[in-house]
């Protein structure tokens, strides 16, 4: 595999994009999970699909747009979706979760229309749905790197505020934090990461890379920074194992990455249970 990566540009693109996404998706995922926003990531990924389908339709209909990279319309759709979700959440203050099915079904509905207009599925669209090792272009890699820089800058600038907001929203507001604006920026960054991750993991599975490594990390971590580090380690493990197996078994990387993430999660749950059982048994024997 290493030799193949050195020889083939498409593998370099896929591998390096995967490594970057393996860091930024779980990094933001920790905030998404602790703020109970996991389903919002799903809704946004479905809106991104509408942008991708729209771009594929436009490239079929207008020759001048044939070379347009669908990631750009995907990003625009995803970011617009995040702003819309926030507006809906404010409109339905007592039923904030209503924003998720509204945006999700809207995204799928528009996608279905655009896919029909573009005369159904093609291989390109399938690669967006489930990820692809061969479809990542050098341009995609640059977009992923640019989004990673935005994510890291955002977290450096707002880490402490995001922690306060995630841990105790009421306290954050009471202490004068501009909670509304930080949350909106956060949602936009989440939308960017979703758009960036779709080439590798696929739109339908992108939220899993933001939540599964975090779910495993939360079983082990005592503190927040520990949870972030563990989530990134699990995310990277899933991406590397998933990409390598996708390459050798000729499978969609989205599927292999998600299945690896689930295996890591199951392993962590099992190890934690065994450790707990062992420590209870040892304590019991000491008491006797």
């Amino acid at each position, binding site marked *: 595999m290493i030799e193949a990566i050195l020889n083939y540009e498409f593998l370099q693109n896929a591998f390096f994009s995967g490594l970057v996404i393996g860091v930024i998706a779980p990094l933001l995922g920790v905030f998404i999970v*602790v703020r*109970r926003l996991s389903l919002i990531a799903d809704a946004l990924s479905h809106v991104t699909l509408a942008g991708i389908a729209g771009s594929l339709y436009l490239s079929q209909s207008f020759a001048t747009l044939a070379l347009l990279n669908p990631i750009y319309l995907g990003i625009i759709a995803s970011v617009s979706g995040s702003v819309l979700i926030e507006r809906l959440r404010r409109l339905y203050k007592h039923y904030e979760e209503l924003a998720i099915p509204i945006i999700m079904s809207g995204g799928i509905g528009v996608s279905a229309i655009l896919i029909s207009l573009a005369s159904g599925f093609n291989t390109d669209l399938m690669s967006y749905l489930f990820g692809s090792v061969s479809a990542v272009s050098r341009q995609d890699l640059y977009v992923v790197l640019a989004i990673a820089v935005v994510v890291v800058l955002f977290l450096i*600038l*707002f880490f*402490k*505020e995001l*922690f*306060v907001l*995630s*841990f*105790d929203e*009421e*306290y954050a*507001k*009471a*202490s*004068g*934090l*501009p909670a509304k604006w930080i949350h909106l920026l956060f949602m936009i960054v989440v939308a960017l990461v979703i758009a960036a991750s779709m080439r590798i993991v696929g739109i339908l599975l992108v939220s899993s890379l933001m939540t599964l490594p975090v779910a495993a*990390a*939360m079983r082990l*971590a*005592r*503190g*927040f*920074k*520990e*949870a972030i580090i563990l989530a990134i380690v699990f995310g990277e493990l899933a991406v590397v194992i998933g990409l390598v197996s996708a390459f050798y078994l000729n499978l969609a990387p989205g599927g292999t990455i998600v299945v690896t993430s689930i295996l890591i999660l199951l392993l962590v749950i099992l190890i934690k249970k065994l450790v707990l059982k062992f420590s209870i048994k040892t304590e019991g024997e000491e008491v006797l």
Partner: protein
Amino acid sequence: MKKPLIELKDVSFQYEYTQALKNISLRVNEGDFLALIGQNGSGKSTLLKLILGLLKPMSGEIKLFGEQANHFKHREWIGYVSQKSNAFNSGFPATVEEVVKSGLSQKVGLFKRYPKDADFLVKGALKDVGMEKFLKRNIGQLSGGQQQRVFIARALVADPKLLILDEPTVGIDRENVQAFYDMLAHLNKHHNMTMILVTHDVDTVSDRVSHVACLNQSIHFHGYKNDFDTISEEQIASWNGHSVRKIH
């Protein structure tokens, strides 16, 4: 004359269909330890939200540290301990140290990292509430009373001039309530920290407080604790709408 930290003049607030507060005038001076009591639905939380800037009054005027509340910039001067029950998710992966350090966030300001002495300040705040041994423990593994102490440490770490506690004794065992008040009285006296303690339970108001205010949409009493003690339980019950038992 003591400096007023909070001044409310004829403040009224109404939710869509309900009048929550009517012509509230209240003054809290530097060094006061005020117990604000009122039954559920009396407008305590609304009053707190108005003071904290989370709501805007329909009419009247609110001044914080002598400045109009809507122009007040030094939010870090006000420490706030919200009701534990609705404040956080107990499965949150955070250590006591991380939670307390987050109390410095507003003081440090946007785009800046925590100062180098942040760890020292965190340890100091935890020592003040007797929780220094729990620095690296997960917040969710602590008892209700211990969590409440951690939240107070989070408010103290920024060295506020005014500490507002919303129903702080909820979740604390009856026998530990007095020790809790002792700790607050220590902070009030030795750190010259002005305190507002909000509670629905008259029974929990101890002799440690200096002033009492009774709220039920409007202020029915505001004065020294000693004067409050001379008021009959029946009188307080008529303000509150249910029977009460005072502790002395």
